[in-house]
């Protein structure tokens, strides 16, 4: 059965690109347009194996979203990859403290994304 990945990003085109990369590798993909929508999608989904989240988003940013996810008993063990244009070390430290497992800078290379996803899904 295909592993399910939740993509949280306010850019529709970026979500489509991540979805294209992951679905070609056999992953099922759920999309959310910001952190708030991400929590709603998690609530609705039967099982999510990994989250790929942007940092800068309207309504709820990625680091706040991860913080919320890690407080939910049902979802706190889901690994999270931050996928963002941000490259500030302070933000990276915040994401790590919030519970994210990896940081990938945009533009991403599909093989690199797949390698990171594969590592964390199997972990």
């Amino acid at each position, binding site marked *: 059965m295909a592993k399910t990945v939740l993509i949280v990003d306010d850019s*529709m085109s970026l979500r489509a690109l991540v979805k294209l990369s992951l679905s070609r590798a056999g992953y099922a993909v759920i999309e959310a347009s910001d952190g708030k929508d991400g929590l709603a999608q998690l609530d609705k989904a039967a099982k999510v194996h990994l989250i790929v989240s942007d940092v800068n988003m309207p309504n709820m940013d990625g680091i706040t979203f991860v913080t919320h996810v890690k407080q939910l008993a049902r979802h706190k063990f889901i690994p999270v990859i931050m996928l963002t244009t941000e490259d500030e070390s302070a933000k990276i430290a915040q994401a790590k403290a919030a519970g994210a497992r990896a*940081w990938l800078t945009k533009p991403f290379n599909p093989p690199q994304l797949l390698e990171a996803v594969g590592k964390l899904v199997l972990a």
Partner: protein
Amino acid sequence: MTNQPRWLVATLPAVSIACAGLPLFHRIGILEMMAVFGVAVASIWAGVRSARAAAPSAAVRARQAIDADAPLLARHIDKLPPLLRGILPVWRDHVESIRSQTDTAVGDLVVNFSSITEQFEAAGFKGTADSSANAQDTTISLLTLCERELQPVIAAMSRITDSKGALAASVHELSVITGELQTMASEVAGIAAQTNLLAINAAIEAARVGEAGRGFAVIAKEIRSLSQSSAKTANYITGRMAQIMTIMKSTSEAATQAAASDKIAIKLSGTVVDDVLSHVRVLSVEAQTMLGQGNVIRSNIEALIVSLQFQDRVSQVIGVVDKDMARLRDTINGDEALPSADQWLADLQSHYTMKEQRRSHGTSAGGRAAASSAAPAAALFF
């Protein structure tokens, strides 16, 4: 009031760059808009890169502009706030329209592209990073299987035909020996006939001798009886041998015919097997060609996925400019004291997320060496 020209002049270049092409988008389609937008962004990046070494920072440019345009600004300064109140919302709407339309258009483009790649993969053009690809393995396995399994079958069939040939030869040899036995039986019949004749003569001679030949007459009679019995048995053997000869002949003919038919069938099977192997070899070559083309397509898809992410980066830049225009509007409408150009720019800079933005602002420590920041970087694991 004295600060107003400084922050206005500092902000306007950034806003004007973002909005320079806006009127175009009312008259053209999404794809053309994307193309124009892409060219514009690329031109801006290229211009920024080439001019970076010599060009002063945004803050320095702002100050230079203030100094140069101070007399002009002094004449129009009272008209600027109402003007900006009127046009800023329109500019923001246009900027948001660009951001949203390009995002939707690139998203649609990716969805359509995704469908095309799925069709390519369904047609067999599925590349893989692994050289021992499944598709290639399958074809090569099929070829190996055909060569390994079919060739021995043909060899086994040939051996069976050879065995049948040997059987036919043995039957023929048996037929020859049976013929010899039939001849011998005929000779035995001849000997019996001569013995019978001899017994008759012996009986005649015994009768001529009279009483003294009576015993010999009994012996002659027994010999005659035996010769008749031998003749009868020899005739019986000859008859059965003739039957055996007939059966042997038909068996030999059938075996010879079967061996000939088998040879034809095996030759035909060999030709079919060679044809199948030849087709499988062609399929193998085609599969490898398709795998190679699939890898090219796969590589192009990956490059395209990286390239199309320009939209996300452009969107980030536009988002910051849009927020800054909103701040400009709120500042004009507000009652608080206006910030200095340096304060405004410092606040603007705090919203940057990418090296390109910091470089454009002119304060990036990376300078020209950071030009490769838009290339994919390795993942950082915690």
